[in-house]
């Protein structure tokens, strides 16, 4: 105790110069760091960390030619995506969320607003997808089988269902992760399709 006292007494004129800034910095620096962190956290709040940004947006769909579903015909190839704006939907008979979204896809098909193409992903048995469509209804135009994720990986797919909006030139314009519902359709997909049609 006494030692520190004599030291400060020895150099009273150096006190404000040396520690004035230092003391202020001790309070300012953590506050700044804290504010920056708060900024990052607030930005993160609304985001779902599981949703990856698709690097494929505004890039042409990769070239591919999938096998048709047994007995269905109309296989999906990259060529079938050119000419009109279309949706490409990743689904599977094993995928529960696909069942949730399925009635809405049927509604879109009935409205005739936009063709939906399907990628039947990772079926254990190639007939499973066909049975599923026979049971619940078939909203698709062209459908291809992708049992080993070759095309799913080309589309940067991380799970099913995922829905891509592809423009007339076959360029991917949007990726929706998770089931398509009325809200997503009205707010995002429908306006985007209308915009892409006129451009």
């Amino acid at each position, binding site marked *: 105790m006494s*030692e*520190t006292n*004599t*030291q*400060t007494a*020895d*150099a009273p004129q*150096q*006190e404000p*110069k*040396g*520690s004035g*800034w*230092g*003391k202020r*910095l*001790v309070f300012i*620096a953590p506050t700044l760091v804290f504010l920056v962190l708060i900024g990052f956290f607030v930005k993160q709040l609304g985001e779902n*960390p*599981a949703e*990856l*940004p*698709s*690097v*494929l947006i505004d890039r042409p769909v990769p070239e591919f030619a999938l096998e048709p579903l047994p007995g269905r015909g109309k296989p999906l190839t990259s060529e079938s995506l050119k000419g009109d704006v279309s949706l490409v939907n990743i689904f599977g008979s094993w995928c529960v969320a696909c069942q949730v979204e399925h009635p809405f896809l049927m509604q879109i098909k009935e409205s005739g607003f936009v063709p939906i193409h399907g990628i039947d992903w*990772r079926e254990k048995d190639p007939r499973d997808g066909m049975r599923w469509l026979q049971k619940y209804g078939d909203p698709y135009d062209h459908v291809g089988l992708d049992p*080993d*994720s*070759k095309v*799913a*990986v*080309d*589309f*940067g*797919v*991380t*799970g099913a269902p995922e829905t891509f909006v592809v423009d007339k030139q076959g360029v991917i314009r949007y990726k929706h992760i998770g089931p398509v519902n009325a809200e997503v359709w009205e707010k995002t997909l429908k306006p985007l399709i209308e915009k892409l049609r006129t451009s």
Partner: protein
Amino acid sequence: MSMNRLRTLAAAAALSVTVAVALPAGAVLPDEMLDDPKLEERAREVSRNLRCVVCQNESIDASNAELARDMRLIVRDRIAAGDTNEEVLQFMVDRYGDYVLLEPPFKASTYALWFGPAIFLLLAAGAGYAYYRSRTGGVPAETVRPAGLSAEERARLDALLRDDTDTSSKS
């Protein structure tokens, strides 16, 4: 040592050997492996650097997810087709973005990630130094050292020491 104790020790040894041998195998199943061990080793190396996009914090080499398995097979396809390791990694980055790499690439958007820790260390060291300086009032250490003996004190000390040697020689 009792028989039971021995048995436990043997079991522990067997278990640790199993774990040590099993760990590097990851989630790769024998039917996925390439025939050429050199190519397979490269595939393992590439797979360890690729994130399983379903599980997010595992490499595709370690993950049991179905998509991870398919990605491992695609990695092997590309290696068998003659791609370099970098080309295979780029193939995945083209489809999934930098996110798919477990080690973030060194580029402008990741500078904060790479330099952040070093900058914080420097800041902390600076703050520590400033604090230390303010505690000692910025006075160099030498000036606070006690002053040497005055001439008078020196003479007294010499006298005392002489006294001491005199008494010790007498006895």
